[in-house]
């Protein structure tokens, strides 16, 4: 009987893990010894880092969306449905349409999602670029923006930790290019006592922002937004009037974790930091944003984790060998520092990042990656 791998979630981590395993075990899949099933209720994949560019009219929505079935390696079976519960006792994933998928090995790659309800007024009073709908609405707001006060406010936890800085720096240069910088005030707020959660990034970003005339307000945890009065309040008691409020809404995990009794109160899955197994389980693995690991919730993390996990799954599915490859906490993030230059950070569990000086070459590297990401997803490159 075939060994069955089921992967829940066709985001970056889920797609890559499915494709890596399918390409490595092509013969076993063809012989019927192994099956790889990818499960998601969506039929299209969205390259989420592209939202930032959509908001600034630098990429079109169609450039960052592809049908999932075009991204699958040969041998991956795609099931379009929603997982409602993982029954670990019977090793089955129960689906919204009533059926169930049996598994021998399960990967949970359900990502993280906006939790708009946590902050009163956030949905009605702010803009964001963490969904396609939000990015398009922000694009309209920016097209109409002729000057005024723009406030950036950051909820926690959230994915893509450098995105608020990128947006602020891109906006500053964008306003200069449009000749409205003089009429614009930019306020960048952050919930901690510095401008970013990573010390090295904060040390680099604060003088960069100040040099560009951006006001930095730390210890600003969004408490509520008053859409009619256009005021954002913080828990610390600071308030700001705004013309445009751009927020990074707080995130949480998918409902599935709570419904299955497998996730913590934030709906994140307790995960072994090296082997990516769900704590207390031998045959369930967690990938990407869905974990509770102390690493960034970012596409690169899902990618690096997927490579390690795929190697372990290939061993398990083909030889029954126990997981021997270890994820070392590796992360890589580009940081756009405007519209024409970028830098990057790279770090892992042991080594904190440093921030090199921004260059045009890294910006174009990022632009190139935005367009070849698909080959990476398909495990072609």
């Amino acid at each position, binding site marked *: 009987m075939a060994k069955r791998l089921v992967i829940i979630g066709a985001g970056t981590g889920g797609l890559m893990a499915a494709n890596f395993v399918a390409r490595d075990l092509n013969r076993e899949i063809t012989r019927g010894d192994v099956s790889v099933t990818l499960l998601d209720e969506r039929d299209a994949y969205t390259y989420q880092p592209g939202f930032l560019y959509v908001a600034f009219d630098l990429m079109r929505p169609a450039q960052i969306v592809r049908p999932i079935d075009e991204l699958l390696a040969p041998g991956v079976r795609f099931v379009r449905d929603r997982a409602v519960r993982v029954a670990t006792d019977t090793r089955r994933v129960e689906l919204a349409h009533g059926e169930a998928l049996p598994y021998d090995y399960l990967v949970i790659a359900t990502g993280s999602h906006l939790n708009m309800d946590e902050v009163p007024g956030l949905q009605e009073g702010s803009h964001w670029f963490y969904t396609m709908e939000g990015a398009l609405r922000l694009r309209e707001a920016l097209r109409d923006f002729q000057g005024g006060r723009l406030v950036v406010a950051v909820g926690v936890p959230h994915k893509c930790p450098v995105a608020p800085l990128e947006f602020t720096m891109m906006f500053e240069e964008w306003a200069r290019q449009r000749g409205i910088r003089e009429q614009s005030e930019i306020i960048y707020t952050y919930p901690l006592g510095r401008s970013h959660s990573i010390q090295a990034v904060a040390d680099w970003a604060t003088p960069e922002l100040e040099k560009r005339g951006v006001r930095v307000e730390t210890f600003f945890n969004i408490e509520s937004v008053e859409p009619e009065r256009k005021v954002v309040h913080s828990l610390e008691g600071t308030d700001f009037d705004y013309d445009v409020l751009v927020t990074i809404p707080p995130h949480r995990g998918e409902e599935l974790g709570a419904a299955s009794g497998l996730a913590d109160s934030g709906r994140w899955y307790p995960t072994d930091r090296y082997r990516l197994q769900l704590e207390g389980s031998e045959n369930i693995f967690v990938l990407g944003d869905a974990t509770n690991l102390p690493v960034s919730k970012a596409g690169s993390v899902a990618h690096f984790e997927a*490579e390690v996990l795929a190697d372990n799954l290939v061993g398990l599915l083909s030889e029954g060998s126990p997981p021997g490859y270890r994820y070392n906490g590796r992360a890589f993030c580009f940081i756009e520092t405007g519209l024409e230059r970028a*830098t990057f950070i790279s770090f892992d569990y042991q080594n904190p990042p440093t921030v090199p000086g921004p*260059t045009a070459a*890294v910006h174009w*590297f990022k632009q190139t990656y935005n367009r070849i990401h698909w080959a990476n997803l398909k495990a072609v490159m």
Partner: protein
Amino acid sequence: MAMEEKNLVDTFREEGSSLASAALASVTPRMINRLGGVAESTIAALDLLTSPDIVNLLNKVQKAAPVLVPLLDQVGELGSGMGMEGLAARITRAVAVGEEEVRRHPEPITVGELLRMVRKDPALAFVLRFFLGFVRSMWLEPK
């Protein structure tokens, strides 16, 4: 070295160094393996494309191109008037023309000649792109 020239060299060095650092920081052994696989597939595809059988086929396609290209343009009109019989007649005529041309020029073309023809002949370039897309979808990315 003049100051401007020195600055230019420094800029290139700085840009190149940052790019190399970013590439090193983002790449993984698996990506290198896969790039190796892509390179191997590309070389294999070139081998395939330059094999005598394919060059012969391309030669036939090239000869038939003047007929095939308008045919391809008209495929989309099938439902609105041309019909299957008309399409079949055109295909028959196109292949016949191609074979007749090949009979008159029996020597297979070289890749260099093919590339020169492609540069000069937009119709052939179109057909070749169509063919390469077909090879890519059927062979390099099998479903």
